[in-house]
């Protein structure tokens, strides 16, 4: 057996036992760590229950607090034990008691056998990730956190404030580039061994002991130092809400989990009997080659976020603040802001003009070089100049004027994170605006340009930040515009429905079903490109999940060092 498993358990031990049995039955040696907070009788009963399995060993118990160092220490300890006693292991999987294998463990082994050198660990630099609890991202690594966040929240906050006030900063050990990511990884023996036997480990350990939530950063950072081949994603499916708490899977998620084709999922609700009865699926036909596809799960959980922002205004949830700026339409008539479509399709403007047979469809009006009017002329109706400086001097007036001057026709223009962003608030608050965004579509031009990878990475991070900021505005409670946001992955999967809506909007009347679709840019290899970005520590979260197709051979892998935090 090539695969060994570390299981960290602290609650619902009966379910943990079930999960451990799945691992052990498949022939994997398992080392179990049980939190010291579990009471002694319960612990003994748990050990007894598993005493029939000689592949299962229990390790020294640490008392683990959320966000504390002990969890890492426990993992290190368990990993050392596993590596020392089983020389045959090639991959080590870190799982929890609330993890459940969804597919047969043997399929996971086959999958890993085909990738003997690869470390699966989600690992991104702080500037690239959107998930930050309590507003602390980079500061996790530069402040001290001696107080428990759960138990002494006030002192925790106070101490952080104090350090910020006096400008305290810890020195990060040389050579260490902080990375963060999912706690659940699968590392090769080579990498794990290198981490555990690194002569500088005492220095690193001393440093990480005071980092906040080291279980999400210690191995993620260390792997960057020692690994030769990182796949920056977790093989364990786990989703987090905006407070950083893990989503729990219930019985009604059964079909969803099955579709995801992921190997392992967490957290499973201990009382979800149906899930525990169903998974892991029995090994029936050889579908080992099916790669995990967490995108469907992503969609369901992302929808929960969107629903509140796209709900109808005027319902009880909106009316809590009667002082909301009730400035209604500031423009003369309805107009459309289209973001990302011109990137996905060849000559989208031309197609839309033809399809609507009416409205003015402009290019990127707010592009950095000049305003691209529909007929590409330097001066448009009403004496509007295409000069960028003149336009940006008062971009809001530029837009209101354009719409006023052409109020007989519906105006539509392309927009994107590379354009002037000063109009965002005005457009968002304007009831006349119809905003459609394919988020992350800017990646396509970067993908097609095939420039130096480090430049691409930098530019992608910049555009993503701009677009993320814009989407935050569109999701704010003050937004009155009609807003439609989908990720690139979602849009590409079924573009026609959205296009139909846009055509109806621009021509201001319902149309018969669209006969002709615009031609889409070739996107083969985009999934691999995105995974490459991820492997370099940049997390393109706005594009949505593309099915992993790294095996298609279009890899752009370069040996660039990850971009530094500082």
């Amino acid at each position, binding site marked *: 057996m090539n695969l060994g498993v570390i299981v960290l358990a602290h609650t619902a031990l009966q379910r943990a036992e079930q999960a451990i049995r799945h691992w052990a039955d498949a022939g994997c040696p398992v080392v179990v760590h049980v939190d010291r907070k579990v009471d002694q009788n319960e612990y003994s009963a748990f050990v007894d229950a598993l005493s029939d399995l000689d592949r299962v060993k229990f390790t020294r118990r640490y008392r683990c607090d959320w966000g504390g160092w002990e969890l890492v220490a426990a993992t290190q300890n368990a990993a050392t034990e596993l590596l020392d006693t089983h020389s045959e292991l090639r991959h080590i999987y870190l799982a929890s008691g609330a993890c459940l294998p969804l597919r047969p463990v043997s399929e996971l082994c086959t999958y890993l056998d085909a990738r003997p050198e690869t470390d699966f660990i989600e690992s991104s630099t702080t500037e690239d990730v959107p998930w930050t609890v309590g507003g602390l991202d980079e500061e996790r690594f530069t402040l001290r956190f001696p107080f428990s966040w759960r138990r002494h929240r006030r002192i925790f906050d106070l101490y952080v404030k104090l350090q910020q006030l006096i400008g305290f900063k810890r020195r990060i050990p040389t050579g260490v580039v902080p990375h963060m990511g999912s706690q659940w990884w699968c590392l090769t023996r080579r990498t794990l061994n290198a981490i555990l036997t690194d002569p500088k480990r005492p220095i690193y350990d001393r440093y990480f002991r005071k980092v906040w939530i080291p279980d999400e950063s210690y191995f993620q950072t260390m792997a960057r130092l020692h690994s030769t081949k990182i796949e920056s994603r977790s093989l364990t499916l786990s989703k987090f809400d905006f407070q950083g708490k893990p*989503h729990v899977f219930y*019985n009604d998620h059964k079909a969803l989990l099955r579709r995801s084709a992921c190997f392992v999922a967490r957290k499973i609700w201990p*009382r979800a009997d149906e899930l525990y009865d169903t998974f892991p699926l029995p090994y029936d036909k050889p579908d080992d080659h099916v790669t995990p596809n967490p995108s469907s799960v992503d969609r369901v959980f992302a929808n*929960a976020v969107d629903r509140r922002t796209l709900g109808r205004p005027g*319902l*009880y949830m909106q009316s809590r603040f009667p002082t909301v700026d009730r400035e209604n339409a500031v423009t003369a008539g309805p107009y459309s802001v289209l973001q990302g479509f011109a990137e996905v399709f060849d000559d989208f403007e031309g197609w839309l003009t033809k399809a609507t047979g009416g409205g003015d469809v402009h290019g990127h009006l707010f592009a950095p070089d000049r305003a691209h009017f529909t007929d590409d002329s330097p001066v448009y109706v009403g004496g509007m100049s295409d000069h960028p400086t003149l336009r940006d001097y008062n971009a809001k007036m530029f837009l209101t004027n354009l719409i006023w001057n052409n109020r007989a026709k519906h105006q539509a223009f392309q927009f994107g994170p590379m354009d002037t962003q000063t109009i965002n608030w005005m457009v968002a608050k304007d009831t006349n605006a119809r905003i459609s965004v394919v988020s992350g579509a800017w990646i396509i031009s970067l993908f097609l340009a095939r420039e130096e990878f480090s430049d691409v990475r930098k530019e992608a991070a910049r555009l993503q930040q701009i677009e993320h900021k814009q989407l935050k505005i569109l999701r704010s409670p003050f937004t009155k515009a009609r807003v439609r946001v989908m990720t690139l992955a979602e849009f590409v999967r079924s573009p026609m429905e959205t296009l139909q809506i846009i055509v109806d909007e621009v021509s201001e009347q319902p149309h018969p079903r669209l006969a002709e679709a615009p031609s889409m840019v070739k996107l083969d290899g985009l999934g691999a490109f995105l995974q490459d970005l991820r492997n370099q520590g940049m997390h393109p979260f706005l594009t949505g999940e593309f099915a992993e197709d790294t095996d298609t051979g279009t890899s752009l892998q370069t040996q660039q060092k990850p971009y530094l935090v500082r």
Partner: protein
Amino acid sequence: MFRCLRKRRQLHAVQNRTAAIRKGSILGFSCVRNEVIRLPYFMQHYRDLGVDHFLFVDNGSDDGTADYLAEQPDVSLWRTDDSYRLSRFGMDWLGWLQMKYGHGHWCLTVDADELLIYPQHDTRKLPDLTSWLDNQGRQSFGALMIELYPREPVGQTTYQPGTDPVAALPFFDPDGYRSTWHAIFRNLWIQGGVRDRVFFGPDPTRAPTLNKTPLIKWDRRHAYVSSTHQVLPRHLHDVFGTPQYDRMSGVLLHTKFLDIVVEKSKEEQIRQQHFENSAVYAEYHKALTKSPDLWYAGSNQYEGWRQLVDLGLMSKGTWG
């Protein structure tokens, strides 16, 4: 709270099975009067959801309610013949029981004509919900009350005890809810719905309040103020979403307008025991005895929790 202590002497135990309450049991509290028709389905609904033990106060029923409840294996029953209104509509009586038995438990406080639903309630039971709330650090769970009514004028179809009352009352108002901020109790005050539309047009501030906080992790220091609309300490009814921050919430399906409401309203007219201002309610009860038609073209037929989530009447919050 002192009221609860004082009024406890008005309660007489009929059937006390509270010894069956275990650590972590979910408790149901209700004060009833002549509800033998609604109770069979009520019990079924909440047993399905995972309520472990019910504590009822019977306020002078004469239709067999007490006998029915005393027979149920998971019910403890108290009886009182004192005034419902002077006991703040039963809250003083229930408050005493909650203080004594509810401490440390998730307590559900509902009327016999209220059916609690929440997102995923068909597949996730109350223990699933409360454990998630615990995990989120929340001590209370809010619900919007939605009135159900029939297609025909009220009182024309006969309801069979034990059947789903939603089948007899399939319609509700999908919009027309308004909310204001209650300055004293710091909760969201939601009014509207069908009663507002039909009965309280001339005097909307008197319309029934629709926000409730029926599910609370009880502490002996807690107390409901006015039915389950308001509760102290005040942070407990901080349960609804804000524009920036979506909170998961549920809905109480209000099955008041079954055919029996006509009879009951006649009785109410005589008893005059209802909320804050009995004079206003007298008009309302009078109107109810005349079999009003509550349905209108904008009514929606109830389809299930997903529909209510899509309408924005309850929210999945972050419970994915």
